[in-house]
């Protein structure tokens, strides 16, 4: 990989990190639990994407595998949590 491309990836990673701050602020501010859930889904996708970008930048296979597993596991947990929250709203 050329150094130009490495710089591009570096900048992209920093931009993604900054874009995590937006849903974090939204999660902090919002009163509605479903808006917070949305921010959380957004944060988890973005964080696992940063892991994938980093694995390409460093050429590290293990980090990449952990990133892919983070994508699937995190979302599965959130689906469970969404159902539990829905039950709470009903009760």
């Amino acid at each position, binding site marked *: 990989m050329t150094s130009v491309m490495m710089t591009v990836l570096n900048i992209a990673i920093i931009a993604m990190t900054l*874009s995590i701050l937006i849903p974090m602020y939204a999660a902090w501010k919002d009163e509605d639990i479903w808006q917070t859930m949305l921010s959380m889904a*957004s944060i988890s996708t*973005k964080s696992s994407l940063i892991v994938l970008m980093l694995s390409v930048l460093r050429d590290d*296979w293990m980090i*990449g595998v952990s990133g*892919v597993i983070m994508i699937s596991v995190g979302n599965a947990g959130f689906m469970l949590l969404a159902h539990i929250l829905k039950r709470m709203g009903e009760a």
Partner: protein
Amino acid sequence: MIEVLSSFCILVGLVFGFWGTSSLLGSRSVLFKLHNLSVSDTLGSISIIVGLLFLRPREWPLLLLAIISLMLWNTMLGYVLASCSSDAVKNQHDVLYFDPDFEIGDES
């Protein structure tokens, strides 16, 4: 050449990401934000991963799996969030949640 293509894909992903995520700050309904988040999280992320795929084609199985799981899980999470949150809203306020000019979808 391949690096230009990859940079373009990553740039598109970042633009999608920032555009969709910034709608979280507004005061629209959960469902409206969900539409914008599906742009940013699913499509933007897929675009970024495709950019990474151009950069390092040797790792294609892993990145392809990332794309597939991203598509499937994010879409399913979107559906679950939509149905759960709309149920909760209906139960809480007991209002008719439909649009006034509600229309039957076409038969096709």
